[in-house]
């Protein structure tokens, strides 16, 4: 048992002054970590967020600069567009109230239509010399810049709030999802460059499949920003639909499918939709898979319309999905995805042969952004 008079010697062993100093330092460090361990951990997290925030700020500023430079190059504006671009980046869209969900799809569609028209008008004012394709590309460029601005502002909000409240939980929740947010921001930065140059992006894989099928056939415009071609395919008649390219545009494929179904009085043997699909980690980019259902992303309005019209006539619907990650979806199309479109064309033809009879009518819809993809 330790005697009271020997306690100091037990706590501070050693004969020389140096070992005393070390013992004091270690004891102090122990006390500091007991009482301030969480705060130290928080400061480390804050520093990590600060570093990412600086990177986000740089990406955001670069995005803004690219957008302004592209507007100046293509649009030949008389005045400096910087002020208008700044206003554009801060635009807000207020979604409709959904306490009474009946009819919310149409309310949302209306709001999104108003938003799109407003954006297009703004771009026309900013870039008076731009043609239709350029306007679509510039609108996409500005939307990517606006997305980067929003990401930066949200992270900055949590960073400042965390520092103000000194709440570990506010800091921790943002620090935990930070790698995913940074990946998304970097993807938008790549998208911004692709949009400003009019390069095809990964998301346009579905549109490219449709473009390959309809190439060389007569096209007509159908519904908003979509084109359709009547193509003889494997002894069947295929209505191939895609968003009109080569400008950045997704169109309203749901509305287009609905129109073609109505034009044919519901006598459609099957609908095949081709779209890019977010892959899981471990899956290969450019992997092509088949399934059923309406293969279309976005806010859900177009999917709702397609499901509504197929239900009315009980039309079977098939899906072909090309796997890619978020970075690939908005970056210039990578070779694996481009090659996968050829595989998808083969799968579409096989599905038509297996699921329909000769002389039947089918709809093939290539979904996605048609930037850099003609028809």
């Amino acid at each position, binding site marked *: 048992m330790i005697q009271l008079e020997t306690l100091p010697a037990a706590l501070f062993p050693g004969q*020389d002054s*140096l070992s005393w*100093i*070390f013992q004091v*330092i270690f004891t102090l460090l122990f006390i500091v970590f007991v009482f301030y361990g969480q705060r130290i951990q928080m400061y480390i997290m804050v*520093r990590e967020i*600060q*570093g990412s925030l*600086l*990177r986000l*700020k*740089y*990406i955001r500023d*670069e995005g803004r600069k690219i957008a302004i430079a592209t507007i100046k190059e293509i649009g030949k504006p008389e005045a400096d567009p910087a002020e208008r671009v700044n206003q554009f980046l801060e635009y807000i869209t207020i979604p409709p109230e959904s306490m009474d969900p009946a009819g919310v799809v149409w309310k949302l569609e209306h709001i999104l239509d108003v938003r799109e028209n407003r954006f297009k008008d703004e771009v026309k004012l900013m870039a008076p010399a731009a043609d239709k394709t350029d306007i679509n590309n510039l609108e996409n460029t500005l939307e990517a810049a606006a997305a980067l601005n929003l990401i930066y502002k949200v992270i900055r909000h949590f960073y400042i709030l965390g520092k103000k409240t000194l709440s570990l939980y506010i800091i921790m929740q943002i620090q935990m999802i930070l790698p995913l947010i940074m990946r998304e921001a970097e993807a938008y*930065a*790549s998208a911004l*460059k692709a949009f400003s*140059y*009019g*390069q*095809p992006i990964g998301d346009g894989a579905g549109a*490219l499949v449709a*473009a390959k099928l309809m*190439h060389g056939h007569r096209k007509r415009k159908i519904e908003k920003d979509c084109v359709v071609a009547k193509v003889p395919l494997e002894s069947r008649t295929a209505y191939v639909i895609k968003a009109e*390219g*080569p400008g950045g545009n997704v169109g309203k494929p749901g509305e287009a499918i609905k129109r073609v179904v109505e034009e044919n009085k519901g006598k459609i043997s099957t609908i095949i939709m081709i779209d890019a699909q977010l892959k899981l980690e*471990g899956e290969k980019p450019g992997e092509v898979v088949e399934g059923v259902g309406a293969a279309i992303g976005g806010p859900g309005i177009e999917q709702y319309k397609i499901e509504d019209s197929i239900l009315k006539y009980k039309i079977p619907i098939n899906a072909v999905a090309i796997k890619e990650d978020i970075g690939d979806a908005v*970056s*210039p*199309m*990578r*070779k*694996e*995805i*481009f090659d996968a479109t050829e595989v998808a064309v083969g799968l579409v033809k096989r599905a038509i042969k297996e699921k329909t009879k000769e002389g039947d009518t089918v709809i093939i819809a290539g979904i996605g952004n048609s930037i*850099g*993809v*003609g*028809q």
Partner: protein
Amino acid sequence: MRKAAEVSTRRFSSIILIVIIVVLALSLAALYQAYELFVLNDPNMGYYLLIGIIGLALSTYMLFQTRRQIRKFTLKSPPIVTTIICPECNFKNIRNFERGDYILKELGQCTKCKGKMMISAIYREVKEKVKEEKVFT
């Protein structure tokens, strides 16, 4: 298309600098003590040597962190290639992407057969840095 910018990322307070210097001084003293004990053939030499090396490593690392105030950020854009083919004679031409290119765009006459040239592909080639997970395929 490659741009770089230099952004100041961190500033260290003078208190942290003082702490680093103190730790550095103590580490050096511990190493000296270890040397003294080594001369005297004292078995406690190992503890001092360990403490000195750990302290020295930590303080040097932190000191280098304070020097790393400038960090380079880059937004890289990979090379995009455009493939032009003549559907009639299969003559192929691959060049870098130019503004205005799009897939299925019809270009001028083929230099070989006078047929119509067309852009058949626009893509980027990605060299994967991360090793593929072979076990869980």
